[in-house]
């Protein structure tokens, strides 16, 4: 077997079912995951996916009575078992939180371990009584898409599309209810039905998903695409769209890599690689990258913005020094700021490039640079005056605050300060404030 092309994954008679299956599953779970994410109930999925496990075991026991392991109805019986137990999990969570007043955190923890424990106990019994079927139960723990056949795809595809349809048709209601509960109630919209239906779909998505991602990892598949999407947009509609795309892409790449990587390692005897963890690794990698590099909220862009602001401050500092003392030589100006020769030269280069200064050995302000310097000094002194005269801060403590504010104050705030202080001419240290004509 040689390496696969991407196209082959969709057409190959053995691989096409797992590929489409994983993609539909991931689509469904990432869409529902967006709702769990914006409700800040990410862990609910974790508890409910673990709650499916005893259902899987019982479903298999039921199937063992009537079918052989490869019968399509066997898969159906497992799905129904998983669904019922996950729903029981949801009911126990609601009762524990509501009637018995247990804290949500503790409730989820309790339900998760209770149901998983029950499942494991049942499974160890099945290992002895139905060794043939035990293999199937293990599959659901960590997921194994590769063993899916064409007959499964119909079931999974229709369930995933049902979820998609619900979200498209009920989008406004979902947005409204999860954003502002009280306002929704004041509109007289029945909350109970929508919540019930959302829970129904959440469990449905989990049940579809455990076949390829597994009970243990399923909740990651709910949240990772949603977290990715939140980094990219501030609107719920786009979040659904992006999460759905990233989810499906992770599903596809997960299957593709779990086939490709073993082939790459050993061409003749490829080791087996579970699909579930691979799908999840892909999805969380996407999320992690988005957390680092998304344009608006990512870590990198925040660091860049901080750097740019600091650089701006340093440039402004030099402009002020030049404005106060006329022209300065390279050496004199460098004393003004504690920087390495290299960074200092770079700052000077920027100042020249932006058109504030001219000259390399002897540095002069351009007319534009003079106006900017005057503006900075004006803001600095206005702010000092405001602090001392209006807020009664002591004179020797206002300099630091003004050093910062001179870079921040907008023309509107300057206008308001000017009006409040009645267009002053002198700052608290009896230094002249540059007039508005100078800037």
């Amino acid at each position: 077997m040689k390496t696969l092309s991407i196209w082959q994954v969709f057409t190959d008679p053995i691989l096409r079912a797992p590929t489409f299956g994983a993609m539909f599953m991931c689509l469904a779970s990432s869409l529902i995951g967006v709702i769990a994410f914006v409700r800040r109930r990410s862990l609910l999925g974790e508890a409910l996916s673990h709650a499916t496990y005893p259902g899987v075991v019982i479903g298999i026991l039921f199937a063992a009575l009537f079918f052989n392991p490869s019968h399509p109805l066997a898969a159906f019986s497992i799905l129904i078992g998983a669904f019922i137990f996950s729903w029981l999990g949801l009911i126990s969570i609601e009762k524990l939180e509501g009637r018995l007043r247990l804290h949500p955190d503790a409730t989820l923890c309790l339900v998760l371990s209770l149901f998983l424990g029950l499942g494991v106990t049942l499974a160890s019994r099945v290992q002895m009584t139905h060794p043939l079927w035990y293999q199937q139960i293990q599959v659901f723990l960590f997921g194994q898409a590769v063993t899916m056949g064409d007959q499964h795809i119909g079931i999974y595809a229709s369930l995933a599309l049902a979820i998609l349809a619900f979200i498209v048709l009920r989008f406004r209601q979902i947005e409204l209810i999860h954003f502002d509960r009280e306002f929704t109630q004041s509109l007289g919209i029945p909350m109970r039905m929508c919540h019930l239906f959302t829970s129904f779909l959440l469990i449905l998505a989990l049940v579809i998903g455990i076949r390829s991602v597994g009970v243990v990892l399923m909740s990651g598949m709910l949240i990772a695409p949603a977290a990715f999407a939140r980094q990219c947009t501030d609107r719920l509609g786009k979040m659904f769209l992006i999460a759905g795309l990233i989810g499906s892409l992770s599903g596809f790449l997960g299957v593709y890599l779990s086939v490709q990587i073993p082939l790459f390692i050993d061409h003749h005897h490829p080791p087996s690689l579970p699909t579930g963890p691979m799908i999840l690794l892909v999805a969380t990698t996407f999320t992690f990258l988005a957390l680092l590099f998304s344009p608006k909220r990512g870590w990198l862009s925040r660091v860049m913005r901080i750097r740019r602001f600091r650089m701006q401050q340093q440039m402004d500092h030099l402009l002020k020094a030049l404005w106060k003392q006329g022209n300065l030589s390279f050496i004199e100006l460098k004393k003004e700021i504690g920087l390495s020769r290299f960074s200092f030269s770079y700052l000077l280069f920027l100042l020249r490039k932006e058109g504030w200064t001219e000259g390399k050995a002897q540095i002069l302000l351009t007319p534009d640079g003079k106006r900017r310097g005057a503006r900075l000094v004006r803001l600095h002194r206005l702010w000092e005056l405001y602090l001392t005269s209006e807020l009664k801060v002591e004179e020797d403590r206002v300099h630091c605050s003004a050093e910062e504010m001179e870079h921040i104050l907008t023309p509107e705030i300057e206008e308001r300060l000017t009006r409040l202080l009645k267009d002053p001419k002198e700052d608290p240290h009896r230094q002249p404030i540059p007039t508005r004509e100078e800037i």
Partner: protein
Amino acid sequence: MTKALVVKKLTVSYDHSSALWDIDFAIGSGQIVGVVGPNGAGKSTLIKALLGIVKPISGQAQFFDSAFKKVKERVAYVPQKGVIDWEFPTTVFDVVLMGRYCRLGVLKWYRKSDREMALRLLRLLQMEDLKDRQISELSGGQQQRLFIARALMQEADLLFLDEPFTGVDKATEALIMEILVKLKEEGKTIVMVHHDLNTVEAYFDSLIILKTSLIACGKTADVFNSDNLNRAYGEKGALFDEALRLSLSKSTGLK
């Protein structure tokens, strides 16, 4: 003249902290009505019970001589600022449009007219250039104006506001009051929970003074006096309040 709101024998228990006991009052239309009282007097609970957010133990409310369910399109509500998740992925424009939810068709697609109206209201509240902001990027005053805009989108005849002026600057407060007065002149009725007693006489035509039970309801000039305020804010009433709270916690099995 039909009354905008008639409340009969309303009793509510809520969160085991603020409760209402046997409330009766009526509000005529075309005025601004204040609801005042000390903390925990049940001011917010009153509005929530009227709008069906909290289920009352007994009693009933009539809006324009009908039950709330029948005239819910004519009633709008501005909740307290604290109750929503400000990090929710939604923009200013989206939130304002939510006010039109009940008027939309089955698929709830916004029409051009809805968008025009939303823009008009944002302009009225001086927020036009903020329309694509995520809502957590707004200041306190802007957040409040946003929810006023959403309520105005509903074009209701009866408007409930729950402490709209907490954490809001003076300029916004004046702007909101100006808009409310204009609404009143169009014949609409405004009911507002309020906590600043200094502005009561300037803002309200009528006043409801609450402290678990109804202390007074009537024209501001008639009921806003030291006698009623003492009964609401003074020590005497506290005893009744405490006993009632104790009785509620007993009956729900907490103690």
